[in-house]
Each structure stands twice: as C-alpha cells, then as structure tokens.
C-alpha cells in the first residue's frame, strides 16, 4: 500500500463529520460485512490495522495486537493460549468479531488469540469500550474485528509469502483474489509452525514441549446481480495443533488440538432508502485436550451454532439512519466434561444515528435478548460526537453491556451452576481526537463498573463452583498517535499507544492480577525508494501475580524491541525480501510467572505478488 493511499484512508476516516457522510472509506460499508462497525462507532475509539501493519508482525493475532494496540495479553508461553485484557477487563469481556459475527467460544466465553492467524484478513480493527448492543455478549472492554473485503472490480492478484526463522519457525501464506464487476472470489491459505524450543535467557533451561502447527483457510465469494442485489459468502477454517509448554521439565507432556469453522452467507437487497440483509451463519468449534500426549485419552468439547440474522437499515433522511437487527441463534454443545445441552438465544436491536447540522452527531441503540438458560438485562448505548473545530472532535459514549454465562459455567459436570446470571457492566468514556496535517492524536478516558462477575470458587459438595460474586471497577486513559510525513522519496511513519489502567476488585481494593498500570507501544517506519525499515518497541509495566497484591511476587516490567529491514527486488511490489531481528536487546522477560519468552531471534521472509 503506498503512502498516498494510506493518507487518503486516514483523511476519509477522520473526515466523517466534516464531509457529512455516513460511510467511511477506510471501513467501506459496501466491501465489508460488519456495517455497524463503520456506521455506529462514531462516538467511540476505533483503530484500524491494515495489511501492511499485519505483514510486518508475527502472524498470530496475539503478537500483532500486543505490539500495536493498548491491549494486554496473558500468554502461557510464546504461542500458547493467549487471552486478552482490554481496559483492565477479563478475557471473557473482549469479543472477537469475524465479519460482524461474534465468535467467542461457547465453552469458555473467550477467544484464544494465538488460534487466529492474521494473514487471512484484509483489515483488523480494535474498537474500544462497550458493544453489546450490536455484538452481544462479551463486548465490555472492547471488541476486535477481523474483516474480509469483497469488492466487485476486475482483478486477479496472487500473493505468496514464505518465512523462516529461529527455532525452526516456518510460515507459508498464499492468497488469490479474482473478480470482475459481477463476481469476486478470494481464497487464502496459511500454515505457521515452529519447534518453539528457544533457550531461556540467562538460564540452562529451554522451552520444552512447545511446538505448534497451525493452519487456516479462507474462502470468500461474492456475486453481484446488479447494483441492488448481491450475495456474499465467507468461510474460515482453522486447525491448530499445539503442545503445551512445560512449566517444569518433568511435567506431563500435554497437547491440544482445535478445529474451528466459520461460515457466513449474506444476501443484500437495496431498494429506495432501505438496505436489507439476510445473514445466515454456521459456526463450529471443536477441541481435544490430551493431558498426556502419549496416551489416547483426551477431554473434548464440540459446539455448533446456527445463526439467522435479519438486518434492515433505513435512511430516514440523508442525516438520519435507522437500523434494526433481529437475530436468532441455536447452539448445541457436547463435551467430555459438560452436559449435552442446546441453548437458544433470540435478540432484537435497534440503532439510530443522526447527524445534526455540520458539527454534531449522536447515536443511540438498544438491545434485548431472550435466552433459554439465563435472564438478559436490557442493554443500551448512547453517544455524541461533536466537531469543536476542524481539527478537534469531542466524543462521549455511555452504555450497558453484558457477558453471558458460558457452557462451562452453566453445565460443567463437576460444579456447573445453572442459576448463574450474566455479568453486566455500566460504562462511559470521553474521547478527544485531534487531526492535523500529518498527525492524528487521540486521548480517551473511560470508567467501567462490572457487577456479578463470575468467579469459580471452592464449593462444598464439589471442589469448585462458579458464582456471581465479584464487582470490579476499571478506569484509565488511552493515547493513540499516528504521524506520517514524506520528504521527497523518503517516507516516515510513527505510531504509538499508551494505556494507563486501574482495575480493582471492589471488595478488596486490589488491582487485578496481570493488569499493568502502564503499557506503551511505538513503531517507527522509514521507506526510501525500494528500501524500508521498521523499529517497534513494547513496554509492559510491572504486574501483580497475587490477588492480595503481595509485592514480592510481582513480575518485573519489560521492554522489548524488534527491528525489520525489507527490500523490493525488481519491479515495485512484485518481489520483496525482508529480515527481522526480534528482541534485539535480548531482554529476559516473562509474560506470566515462570513462562519466559524467547531472547534474541530472527525471522526472514520473501513475498511474491503477481
């Protein structure tokens, strides 16, 4: 993507109000399925990572977001299970949205961010704050959006990318996009594997039993009958084979296999001022956990979800947009440790966006759910954005969101509690956005109050039992900076994030474990003719590892730097070779107790486009 295109992207994104447009080209409602992300997020903070950022980072979603956003991740060792903490909330309070569909696991209510390879998506967006009105359960701290684009234009593009790095890390990625004005197809495939047997810094030990081999396949297809009717089909398959790295060398060697499939069929009809979309989705998750990889026995879980959604948008006037969404989903789950249960959820949402004059826009939304196994609260979201000047926008948003009890919470054979209520949150945020010629800068502060948080505690008749016991309050601030400048043939970009997070258990007044008070990332990119270089750095502050915050158990803060160089061979954009040196200062660090990450290591890649 050239610098000029990037600039255009950013201008149009920030230009919403001034241009009085409902669409934002960077998140073009015509080419992505998650329309509400573009149309109903004006009062919240949205950060978009495009394909060039995705390319410069490790293919796992966990690494990409750790180095490029305010999100914090608890990772049980490099490549192992990774769960997010967004704005000091728990892993189940961040929802991952795939082309508009919430794909958090039915079993544990979260997504493993190392089970998503980023190469399959055209863009990845991070939307801070509440989103349950649009996306349902788990959208409390924020949502992460994985988007595929379907554009009807003449094209035939192929891309092959291979990489090889330390610890026998091998990656292969291929995608092809072909289309005309009437149809489009994009197919892509990724394989990422590694022995992952890195040596611990300053130690005789090395990472054992940490190998992984993840494969994913995406197939998207679109057909446009005419300007008013189109169908789109999205499919995504992920197969992950991971060994769980050992805490101590004599631990039992275990491994984990998961197979996830997502399918979405969408039919769009536009007539008069109505846009009508029928969406049918089928999701399936399937895992096997081998506690002892030498034995055949495994615990397993399988959940299949069928979703039917009807999304009707009506442009009442050119400034008022109304959107109602009715959704019905049925999930059947079965597992070695959960009862065989079917869960049905129906929901209705209503959203409205109104641009008033040239400087003000407000959004309002409501959602109510009806479910077979829990009582859903009435959810709402409302916000205002106002352009104080051409360069400064002020945003305010307040919402009520929730997180439903999961299959494991309700139906685990030893201790599942069918009387659980959903967790619910009240939250509000204020955002300040500044747009200058080369600089975008935003400062957002928020406060979230979460009630009835579900925690598994020692029981009486069974060893552990989940209950709605906790109340948590999180508050803090986020700063996002983007700066770009071109001097002749030189192009420089600087991106930075900083987050300050206080997340406390209201009963004890203690900071939740593994939530740092401070986190910052920065990346510096430089391009000159065919040559480009990139430097990124991550700072993660000291964290508590005990619920009573006993300081002797704190994990030290750490700073990790990565450097990359790339060169375009031959004609522009055809062949590119690059090398990355990661953790260049050989920082010794642990993301979780006794789970060291690799020291200095490298990665080399070759990209071929035709």
């Amino acid at each position: 993507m050239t610098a000029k295109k990037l600039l255009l992207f950013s201008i149009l994104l920030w230009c919403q109000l001034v241009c009085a447009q409902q669409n934002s080209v960077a998140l073009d409602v015509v080419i992505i399925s998650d329309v509400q992300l573009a149309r109903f997020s004006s009062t919240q903070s949205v950060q978009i990572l495009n394909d060039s950022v995705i390319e410069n980072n490790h293919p796992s979603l966990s690494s990409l977001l750790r180095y490029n956003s305010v999100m914090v991740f608890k990772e049980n060792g490099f490549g192992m299970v990774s769960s997010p903490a967004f704005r000091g909330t728990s892993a189940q309070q961040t929802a991952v949205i795939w082309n508009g569909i919430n794909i958090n696991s039915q079993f544990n209510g979260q997504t493993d961010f190392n089970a998503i390879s980023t190469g399959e998506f055209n863009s990845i967006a991070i939307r801070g704050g509440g989103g349950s009105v649009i996306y349902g359960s788990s959208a409390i701290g924020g949502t992460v959006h994985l988007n595929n684009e379907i554009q009807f234009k003449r094209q035939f593009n192929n891309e092959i990318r291979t990489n090889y790095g330390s610890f026998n890390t091998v990656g292969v990625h291929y995608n092809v996009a072909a289309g005309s004005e009437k149809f489009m197809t994009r197919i892509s495939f990724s394989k990422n594997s590694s022995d992952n047997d890195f040596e611990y810094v300053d130690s005789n030990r090395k990472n054992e039993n940490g190998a992984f081999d993840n494969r994913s396949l995406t197939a998207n297809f679109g057909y446009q009958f005419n300007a008013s009717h189109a169908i789109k089909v999205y499919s995504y398959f992920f197969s992950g084979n991971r060994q769980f790295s050992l805490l101590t060398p004599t631990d039992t060697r275990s491994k984990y296999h998961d197979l996830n499939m997502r399918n979405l069929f969408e039919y769009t009809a536009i007539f008069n001022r109505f846009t009508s979309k029928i969406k049918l989705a089928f999701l399936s998750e399937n895992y096997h956990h081998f506690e002892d990889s030498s034995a055949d026995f495994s615990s397993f879980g399988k959940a299949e979800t069928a979703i039917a959604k009807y999304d009707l948008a009506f442009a009442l006037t050119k400034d008022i947009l109304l959107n109602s969404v009715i959704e019905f989903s049925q999930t059947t789950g079965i597992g070695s440790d959960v009862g065989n249960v079917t869960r049905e959820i129906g929901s209705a949402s209503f959203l409205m966006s109104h641009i008033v004059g040239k400087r003000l826009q407000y959004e309002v939304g409501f959602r109510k759910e009806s479910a077979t196994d829990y009582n859903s609260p009435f959810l709402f979201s409302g916000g205002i954005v106002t352009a104080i000047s051409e360069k400064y926008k002020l945003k305010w948003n307040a919402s009520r969101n929730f997180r439903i009890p999961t299959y494991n919470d309700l139906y685990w054979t030893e201790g599942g509690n069918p009387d659980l209520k959903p967790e619910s949150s009240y939250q509000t945020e204020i955002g300040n956005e500044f747009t200058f010629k080369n600089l975008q800068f935003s400062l957002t502060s928020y406060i979230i109050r979460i009630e009835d948080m579900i925690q598994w505690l020692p029981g009486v008749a069974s060893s552990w039992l989940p209950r709605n016991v906790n109340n948590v309050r999180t508050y803090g601030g986020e700063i996002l900076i983007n700066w770009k400048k071109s001097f002749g043939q030189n192009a420089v970009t600087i991106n930075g994030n900083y987050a300050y997070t206080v997340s406390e258990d209201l009963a004890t007044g203690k900071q939740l474990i593994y939530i740092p008070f401070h986190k910052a990332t920065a990346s510096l990119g430089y391009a000159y003719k065919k040559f480009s270089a990139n430097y990124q750095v991550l700072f993660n502050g000291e964290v508590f590892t005990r619920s009573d915050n006993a300081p002797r158990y704190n994990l030290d803060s750490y700073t990790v730097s990565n450097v990359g160089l790339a060169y375009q061979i031959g004609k522009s954009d055809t062949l590119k070779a690059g090398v990355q040196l990661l953790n260049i200062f050989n920082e010794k660090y642990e993301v979780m107790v006794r789970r060291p990450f690799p020291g200095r290591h490298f990665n080399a890649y070759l990209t071929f486009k035709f």
Partner: protein
Amino acid sequence: MLLASISAIFLFASCDNDDDNDAPLGTYDNGILVLNEGGLGTVSFISADLATVEQDVFALVNGNEQDIGAYVQSMFFDGDRAFIISNGSNKITVVNRYTFEYLATITAGFQVPRYGVVFNGKAYVTNSNSFSNPTDDFIAVINLSTLAVEAPITINNQAEKIIEENGKLYVSGGFYGEGNLISVINPANKSIVTTINVGESPNSLEEENGILYVLCGSYTSASKMVRVRLSDNLILSEVTFPQTMGNAANLDIENNKIYFSVGAKVYKTDLNVTTVSDSPLFTVPSNEAYTGYGFAVNNNRIFISDPASDFSSDGSIFIYNTSGTFIDEIPVGLGPNGFYFND
C-alpha cells in the same frame, strides 16, 4: 584404678555424644516445615520457638533454577533426607531435611503421586493415575539407597493416604467423598492381603496400640470413625458423628487423644469413645473456605492451615496448644497443606 579410668573414658565419651545430639543438624532443624501446594510449591520454615520464620527455604538454599514442582502434595522422611512429592510435575525432590540442600530428583514411574511411607529401605508412594479411572491407582516402589524405581504395586482401587505398621501397608482409598476401602498390602511380595470396607470415603488413618483408626468424611450424611483390629483386620466398632458436624477430616492421635477437624473447627476426644458431640475444642477465626487444608498435632501444639479462598494469594497457619488456647498466627505461602517436624 583401671576400672575408674576406663569408666572415666566412657563418661567423657558419652558427654561428647550428648553435645553432638544437642547441636542443630542444619539451619532448619528444631522447627516446623510447612508445605505450600502452589502453583509452584514452596516450603516455609518456622523455628520451634516460633521466633524465626523463613519463606521458600528451598529457593533460599538452592537458587531459582531448581524447583520442587507444581502442586506439592506431601513430604516423607528417611533418616536425614526429606522426599517432597509433587503431584503436578510427577516427581519427588530429595533434599537434606535439616539444611534443605538439594540431593536428587526422582522423575520416572509416577502418575499424580500423592503420599509416601518408608519401610525396610524402600519408599512406597501412592499414585492417583488418571482422574477418569478410580481403579487404576498404584503404589510406586523406590529403592532408597539407589533411588531407582522398581515395579509398582497395583491396587485396583483408589489409593490416597498410606501408613505402615508391623510390616504391612495400609492404604486408604478415599478422595473427595468417593471410595470406601482400606487396602492392606504386603510389601514383601507386593500383594494385596485384603481390603476392608469402611463404608464411606476414608480420608485419614492412624495406628495406635494395634488398632487402626480410620476417619470417614461425608459431604452429604454423617461422618464416622471406624476402628479396625490389625491382628485380623476386623472392624471392631464405629463411631458415627452428629449429622450437623459436616465433613470430618485430618485424624491425628497424640498422647492418647484423638484430634480431627471440620473446616475451621477442631475437635479433641478420647481413644475409646462411643459417641462424639458437636462441641469443638476451638474454632479458628477465619472466613476462608479451606481452613483445615493442612492439620497436625505435635509436641502439645495443634497446627492448622488457612489458605486464601481463591488460592491466588498467600495463606497463613494458626497454632494452638492442646487445651485449645491460641498461640500464634503466621503467614506462609500459597495453599499450605501440610506440617512436618524436625525436632
């Protein structure tokens, strides 16, 4: 006169021996070792006069590269060696019990090891094996001079606590409300002599004067104590506790008195009672859910542990005397589950 000088020599010699016996055998002699389950397990040391407390003595002595494993379950002794069992890492770490210097690790032949006992140069360690199968438990046999693991003894039932008496091993097969057997094992020929059905989940056992006392806890009905005559393995009598008491555990016998706990309440009774009333000797002032996770009576003092309910921060221990008077509360590590004594 020769006799006088000879006896004088012996006198002096015995004086020297007495001096040697009084000198501590290491930093951690004359005190209490508290085993903290973890996460990664640790051991806390408290001097007998309660004046000195040291946390994580294994790491203090041996550094951070080594560890005693995840979820340490229990410890047993042979001479001056301590054997620390980690059920999460399937290993036993061998250290000097007085200096806590690392000696060796035994890693082969375990599958969720739980408790061990020493007899005739060998150690016998119960293993839960797989959680889905309650009858595949076994006893790992370790040669204590070579530390080599020999062929295991299959139990065909649950195996948790283990004691030795008169050349026989008595294994209780009870785990969180399940199981109902005591297995009697002849270690000489690795055979199961017999099994004794005690009716409900046996969680602790002690021998005193030829009688085996077994405590059977229950979450749903009344707990009870069963007396078994060891000469012929016959059940002599049972004492059913009041239903209101709850799940009784941690049977310990000292100075002809029986002690046991129900959560934070500690009870004391005589050896030959026929009924027990629900009037505790004392109740530990704690709101945590797992008070009594570890319990022991030693040298006229009662030790009871109080882990944090979420197992996510350090716990503490309470010490009382055998009349029920509070002595001290001392902070220890994560999930304290057992007390062991160097005296």
